């Protein structure tokens, strides 16, 4: 770990001023940042510790039925907030499907959005990586690709965004609240993360010195509560990053779909909203044939980044299954193994 200057601001304005320094990085839960610093993969000149700033850790209901999640709300606190979990069950399920209980007690909502890829080549300082060193090349190309992207990747980078939390958030039109040197602004989460193109080192819409202060969900998101699921396929049933995940939600009038929401995780450098699939389901009957067509539409643009073509078919099946589970109804209580396809009773609906 490199030496760094440590700063502990008491206000957002102070934090933004301290982070204006080149090389400054915000510190919140630290669960990803410290790991990266120990591997010498990131070398911040200054850490601006925002965890002592008051007022950033509230879960506030909004007048429209939505909710404002402060950037410092811990993953576990959000998932276990009874009112939040009742109105946004797929988000609570996604949170509980991520990391371990210890990490969920430390990791924050804002930090989750800014976590870095889990690409093994990014994590290996001896490998070429355009994210770490722009122009260095990408050793993942032609390397081990089973966890890499199948949507939106470029010749310069095939890494994925590993978040679970962001997947249902993007499906439900979450808004990111941002403060920075030029003041306050908002960005839809869908446009917050960037695809790699030829600048894979630029991962988000944040300008230098900007910080996330909250994530907001509109009231419309809560209208899906009765039929909203998150499904995550991984190498082991707990404490593993997704190979493919999906958040699927339905608003139903009898067996007719009024509105559908779909986003996929770990398939691209950003949480992947599937608008075409949603449009196909709007007005359609809620049945397996239509879920299958939606899955085809969601993956229509997918292409393997190497030997990872299996993820495309896997993603189609995850989407179809997630809609089958959403259609069957949100369980009264999150299942013992959150988001797992191996959960007791999960096969009942297929």
């Amino acid at each position: 770990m490199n030496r760094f200057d440590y700063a502990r601001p008491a206000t957002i304005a102070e934090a933004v001023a301290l982070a204006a320094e080149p090389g400054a990085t915000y510190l919140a839960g630290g669960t990803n940042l410290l790991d990266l610093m120990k591997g010498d993969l990131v070398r911040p000149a200054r850490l601006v510790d925002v965890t002592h700033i008051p007022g950033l850790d509230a879960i506030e209901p909004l007048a429209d039925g939505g909710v404002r999640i402060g950037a410092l709300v811990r993953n576990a606190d959000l998932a276990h907030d009874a009112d939040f979990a009742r109105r946004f069950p797929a988000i609570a399920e996604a949170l509980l499907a991520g990391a371990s209980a210890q990490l969920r007690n430390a990791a924050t909502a804002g930090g989750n959005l800014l976590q870095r890829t889990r690409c093994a080549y990014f994590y290996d300082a001896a490998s070429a990586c355009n994210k770490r060193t722009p122009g260095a090349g990408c050793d993942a190309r032609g390397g081990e690709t089973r966890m890499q992207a199948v949507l939106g990747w470029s010749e310069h980078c095939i890494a994925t965004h590993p978040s679970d939390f962001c997947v249902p958030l993007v499906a439900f039109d979450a808004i990111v609240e941002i403060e920075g040197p030029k003041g306050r602004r908002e960005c839809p989460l869908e446009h917050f993360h960037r695809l790699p193109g030829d600048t894979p080192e630029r991962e988000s819409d944040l300008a230098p010195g900007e910080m996330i202060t909250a994530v907001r969900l509109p009231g419309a998101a809560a209208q899906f509560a009765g039929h909203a699921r998150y499904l995550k396929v991984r190498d082991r049933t707990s404490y593993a990053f997704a190979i493919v995940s999906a958040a699927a939600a339905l608003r139903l009038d009898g067996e007719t779909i009024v509105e559908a929401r779909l986003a996929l995780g770990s398939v691209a450098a950003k949480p992947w909203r599937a608008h075409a699939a949603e449009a196909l389901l709007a007005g359609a009957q809620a049945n397996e044939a239509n879920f299958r067509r939606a899955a085809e539409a969601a993956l229509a643009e997918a292409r393997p980044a190497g030997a990872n073509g299996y993820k495309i078919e896997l993603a189609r099946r995850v989407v179809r299954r997630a809609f089958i589970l959403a259609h069957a109804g949100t369980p009264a209580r999150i299942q013992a193994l959150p988001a797992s396809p191996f959960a007791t009773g999960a096969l009942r609906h297929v």
Partner: protein
Amino acid sequence: MSLSLSLTVNGIARTLDLADPRVTLLDLLRDRLHLTGTKKGCDRGQCGACTILLDGRRINSCLALAISHDGADILTIEGVAQGDQLHPVQAAFIAHDGLQCGYCTPGQIMSAIGLLREAQTGDDPERVREAMSGNLCRCGAYAGITAAVLDAQRSMADAGRAHAA
């Protein structure tokens, strides 16, 4: 620049000077306070051997900068027994052979104490296993660990009822 840090560790207030902000809570506990019960396994948040309670909640102390937790209340494995009387979770780990080599055990026990405080699992072994997934045991004592957590939960509930009666 020296940084000053105040912590309560196992009930004792401590004020420490840090020459360098890079010190993690794990290294502070082991190297400065000589509380070596908290183990360093992977040092990267993957194994759970370094689990402690920070303000009553289980975390990986290897991924926490000490200076960021100025003012915190910390409980480590050294602080859970009452004199010679073991914590019910410690006693249950012994009763159920919830260990073999013992290296991961302090982290397992602190994680289990955190789990019982969270009160999310009930008596469902599947939920206990899921909630303990952040603690690896390479000897594979998982069956005993799950039994120990469930047993400790029962004995603590019984003791609570007896105390209330």
